[in-house]
């Protein structure tokens, strides 16, 4: 029997450009996280960082589709790094997760710079979430040619 682990509100800062870009008025969404049987065993076989990253990807998919009405289109591989695309590869989607609340802003900034320098020349979304204070940042950014 699966049980709900938590219900949480993920707050997306108003200053982010989703609203301006797509005209959406929603600035938060609620997601329920469910466990699967014996999921805690994952901690015995997976490194903590990997669990945080996979959890961030799951949260990102739920939130971006809820807030921007974009579809998760594709995952491609670039060396060992996975790239996530939205809407038929129109937008790149950078995702990261952290357990430390103090790292949220800096990690978001780091991911924004990474997106703005992406080799595909695509605009995209950046999502970073923090699991200790249940906050997340989602923003839309244009590619910046260098």
């Amino acid at each position, binding site marked *: 029997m699966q049980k709900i682990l938590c219900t949480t509100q993920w707050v997306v800062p108003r200053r982010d450009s989703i609203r301006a870009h797509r005209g959406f008025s929603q600035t938060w969404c609620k997601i329920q996280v469910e466990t699967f049987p014996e999921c805690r065993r994952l901690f015995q076989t997976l*490194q903590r960082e*990997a669990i945080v990253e996979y959890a961030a990807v799951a949260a990102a998919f739920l939130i971006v589709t809820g807030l921007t009405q974009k579809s998760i289109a*594709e995952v491609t591989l670039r*060396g*060992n790094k*996975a790239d996530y695309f939205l809407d*038929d590869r129109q937008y790149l989607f950078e995702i990261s997760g952290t357990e430390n609340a103090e790292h949220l802003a800096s990690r978001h900034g780091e991911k924004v710079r990474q997106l703005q320098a992406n*080799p595909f020349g695509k605009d995209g979304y950046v999502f970073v979430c923090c699991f200790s204070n249940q906050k997340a940042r989602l923003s839309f950014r244009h590619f910046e040619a260098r």
Partner: protein
Amino acid sequence: MENQNHDRNLAQKKSLLIIQAQFQQALGQHGEAARLFLEAALLEEKLARQFRQADQNEDAVLSLFSAASCYKNAGQLAQAIALADEAIALSVSEIFTKEIRQFRNECELTLTTTRGRNLRGVVRNGAVHPFEPGVLAEGQFVTITAA
């Protein structure tokens, strides 16, 4: 960019395979990860062909590089290099070409290392012998494929 000429189901299936393969890799299930990467590579190659037929070269390059990366993760370095070469030939983005070239060089280096030193030391007369001490430096690995 209009991307209506490729098979979306194929793209979704391939995406799922990549995620599963990476997950298996993180779990340390390298055999299963390699199998999934290989499956994903074949689908990604198919997508690249579809993009090329539709004259969407930029997307074809992306798929070719992704297929090459999948082959590399599956331990098939020669195939990874061949696809990287194809991607380089088709790519128009300077920054992306540079990245693919770097990836290609890494594959070549690994291939040369395994061919030139390790495998020669362990495979004789078609049979695989136990590793000799000192053949493998710390952190190096070999991929042995049955003939």
